[in-house]
């Protein structure tokens, strides 16, 4: 593995829930003490169901929302401590492709200008005419016609819009691209096109991806390593091969069993999790997954499991393995 480009340490984000004037304040624990490293030129897939804090994590990393606590080192520098002016230069290198290609483009702005805007906001070009050449280059790179420049977002299909969003994110020549559910809103066939585009861009531009998705099959296709999140915590973190050859965490097991596999149709036993994701508002002590876990034990209810390295590079947060570690 290459050098570390991003080091996340105990990153936490709580959202305050206001509940009337005199009630006690409550907090949604969206991201809780998340620590991980991202290596240069890798793709780190982040999976988890809705409400597991994946998108919040992505947004906090790019300082689109303020973290509650924790540090993020980008090339050794803690970017969480920088003010918006100091962060300006670094923001260019950290860009994001947003979830919904229908909503994330301003309907009133021509897509060419939309792509050119970051160049002007970051003082790379002084006017739109100057930025135009770069925009044409990018439109070509993501497979769109140069005529698209003069058009408005509503004239494009979902897949085309996502290409526009990608061009917009790439215009600043970022080092890290955070893709937040970048293909979830698209048809399966279009998803494949966009995923292939991501793969080819990665090679061409030497990008590092943080690929956030709820769809494990998509993440499996694109990622070098996979991070499984549940209720704001990392449950399992390992290389794609490791996680699929030897799954440790029951939650990951359940997720993997849910991937439809045409070859094993009907023969594969699926693990169905009971109930919904637990409320993230002031979660109880103990394992956050214990309420739905099919391997839950007594200890899970009151003691919080730590993230431990069961194999080199394979981290799991589960009491099943903390005991085993104690034995050794």
């Amino acid at each position, binding site marked *: 593995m290459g050098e570390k480009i991003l080091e996340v340490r105990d990153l936490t984000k709580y959202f305050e829930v206001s509940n009337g004037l005199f009630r006690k304040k409550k907090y949604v624990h969206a991201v809780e003490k998340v620590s991980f490293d991202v290596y240069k030129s890798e793709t780190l897939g982040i999976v988890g169901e809705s409400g597991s804090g994946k998108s919040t994590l992505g947004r906090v990393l790019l300082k*689109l929302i303020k973290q509650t606590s924790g540090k993020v080192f980008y090339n050794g520098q803690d970017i969480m401590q920088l003010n918006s002016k100091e962060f300006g230069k670094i923001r260019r290198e950290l860009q994001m492709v947003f979830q919904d290609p229908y909503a994330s483009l301003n309907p009133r702005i021509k897509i060419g200008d939309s792509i050119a805007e*970051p160049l002007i906001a970051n003082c790379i070009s002084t006017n739109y005419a100057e930025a135009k050449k770069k925009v044409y280059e990018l439109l070509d790179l993501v497979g769109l016609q140069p*005529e698209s420049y003069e058009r*408005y977002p509503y004239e494009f299909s979902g897949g085309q819009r996502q290409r526009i969003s990608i061009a*917009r994110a790439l215009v600043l020549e970022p080092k890290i691209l955070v893709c937040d559910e970048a293909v979830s809103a698209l048809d399966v066939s279009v998803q494949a096109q966009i995923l292939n585009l991501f793969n080819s861009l990665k090679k061409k531009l030497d990008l590092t991806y943080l690929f956030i998705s709820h769809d494990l099959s998509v993440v499996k296709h694109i990622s070098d390593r996979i991070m499984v999140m549940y209720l704001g915590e990392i449950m399992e973190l390992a290389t794609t091969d490791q996680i699929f050859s030897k799954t440790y965490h029951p939650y990951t097991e359940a997720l993997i069993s849910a991937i439809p596999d045409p070859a094993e149709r009907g023969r594969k036993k699926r693990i169905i999790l009971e109930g919904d994701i637990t409320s993230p508002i002031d979660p109880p002590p103990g394992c956050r997954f214990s309420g739905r876990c099919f391997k839950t034990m007594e200890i899970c209810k009151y003691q919080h499991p730590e993230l431990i390295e069961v194999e080199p590079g394979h981290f799991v947060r589960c009491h099943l393995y903390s005991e085993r570690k104690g034995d050794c």
Partner: protein
Amino acid sequence: MLDAIYIQKERGTAKVLKYMVRRGLKGLLTIFVSITITFFIIRLMPADPVSLLVDPKMGPEVQEAMMKQFGLDKPLIEQYFIFIKEVMTGNLGVSFKTRQPVIEVIMQRLPWTLLLLTVTVSFSLLIGIPLGMLAAKKRNQFFDKLISTLVVIGISMFIPFLSFGLLYIFAYLLKLFPTGGAYTPPPAEGFAYYLDVARHVVLPAFTLVISNVATIILYTRNGMIDVLKEDYIRTAYSKGWDDKYVIRTHALKNALIPTITVTGLMIGTMVGGAVMTETVYSWPGIGRLIYDSVSALDYPVLQGAFLVLAIAVVVMNILTDLAVAWLDPRIKLGG
């Protein structure tokens, strides 16, 4: 490629023209229905104008002669067809009370109403849009809550109550502004005249601004809050823009669409005069004219005033739709 864009633009102009024609025809229909309803409603009032104008001592012959002169002796339906025919040729008839042509009466009053309207709408927008934006930005903070409370008060304020309060304080106690009218007779010359009118317009305009600015703040604030939640606002921040630019360029134009619509409707109805405000301040506009004409049962003037109102509402509606379509490329001009 340039050719294609050119053709598209050409088509765009043709489309707008076609739309204007279609909307114009629909507008004419609206105006027709409106004046028809007005015509019959006015005549449903339980009194007849002649008895108000003629001294009862003068005997029935005089009254009959007058009825005949006004055309009120004919059956209602015949009166109606005569009225429509005359309106088509641009003749709105003669005022029962002053014997002046109705067009003249209205044209004397219209500029005053337009003056009051311009002052009111300009100030409402100048004050309302920034306050609404600020309230949206500081959502749920003290400033926003204060503004929201004031907006509710402003919208629910009873205009005569407010007017009398203002008159009592500023005109009677402080003697800062005149109590009524649009100028001090006889009208002064040159600059002094404008200054005099400006002094007279303050109180009625202020009264109208209070209720209208509340509406503008409400719509701007809500529009802004909706837009600030949009994903493309987050996208704009991630591009590296600061707060000021994001709000001005990305949010404002999208957020102002409801405000523009409501302003258009506001202007449309205000051409018909602010009846209560103009009456309290004796402002010589259309609103006051309507009030006076109702008291005098001056049918032709009332019909004329409501015709002006109908035309204003229809025209403002078309203009608003065009403005909104121009602001938002997604909105297509339709039926």
